[in-house]
């Protein structure tokens, strides 16, 4: 499968989707000028991946900021992972948040409430 690798900027996140090396990660800041256009290739990639998913998929979100328009697209990603899980694949979502960021922790809890997929909250210290 092709690899998606997007280097983050101050308004778009870092994205690595690499099935062979089993790296699935979105990190950084997300407030793209055109959210739908930014996330479209990512959602398409996940559709393709779902058909040939690895035995276990661990998807890491390590965002420091996202706007409300991005929050909807993040949910779309999680819903794709939920579909995979419901189809019998082994999926784990890891939601990383800085240990002093209650809002980001809460955002993870809210997503965990909405989607039916194994969900793990991971706090990390900010330097």
């Amino acid at each position, binding site marked *: 499968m092709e690899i998606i690798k997007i280097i983050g900027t*101050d308004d778009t996140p870092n994205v690595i989707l690499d099935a062979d090396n089993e790296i699935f990660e979105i990190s950084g800041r997300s*407030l793209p*000028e055109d959210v739908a256009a930014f996330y479209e290739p990512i959602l398409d990639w996940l559709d393709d991946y779902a058909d040939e998913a690895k035995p276990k998929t661990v998807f890491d979100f390590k965002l420091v900021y996202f*706007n409300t328009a991005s929050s909807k697209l993040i949910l779309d990603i999680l819903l794709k992972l939920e579909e995979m899980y419901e189809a019998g694949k082994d999926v784990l979502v890891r939601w990383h948040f800085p240990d002093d960021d209650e*809002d980001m922790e809460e955002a993870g809890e809210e997503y965990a409430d909405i989607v039916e997929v194994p969900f793990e909250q991971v706090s990390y210290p900010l330097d």
Partner: protein
Amino acid sequence: MDDKKVDIKDLLAFAYSFYKTVKEFKICLVYEGEVTHQIIKAFTSLTETNMDIDEESTSTQKKVFHVMVESLQNISKHANYLPTENQRKEGKGVFMLSKNDEAYCITSGNIVNNAKVQEIKSLLIKINNLDKDGLKSLYKQQIREGRITLKGGAGLGFIDIAKKTGNKLNFNFLSINDKYSFFVLNSKISRNLNTN
């Protein structure tokens, strides 16, 4: 505005009264015009630099950033133009950031069609009547049911501002004429006095 000549003396006097008003309301940033993505990036980055210098807590910084982005995007995506104005791609409006010892205040203003006033007002009243848990459920409901509009909005901005600030939203609709009103929204972010 018609093409009436502006008296230069009045203009200079205005510059001074503007300066005094800005000082009086402790305004750190004031803008009137089209709100593009570049403007949003410039304003948030400028404000982050200033908050760093003021050694504002990370939590306050993040909340101010959040509310600025959502308020500015509201203008950019939802502002209407008067028929006499030149339409631009992005909406235009007024944005102000002010600060006192207790809080940051974010105020935005833009033109809306009167037909939309009731809908916006009801949503804001609904939000202001909810407690933290109520806001969480409304957010979860809207993120599930809402769709990204052509303009790229998720219908979550006001809810998110209320959730992040923990304060009520102040708002007003001032009548321009029988078709349009000027919508003003103001939110307050308490300054977290913890050092970190």
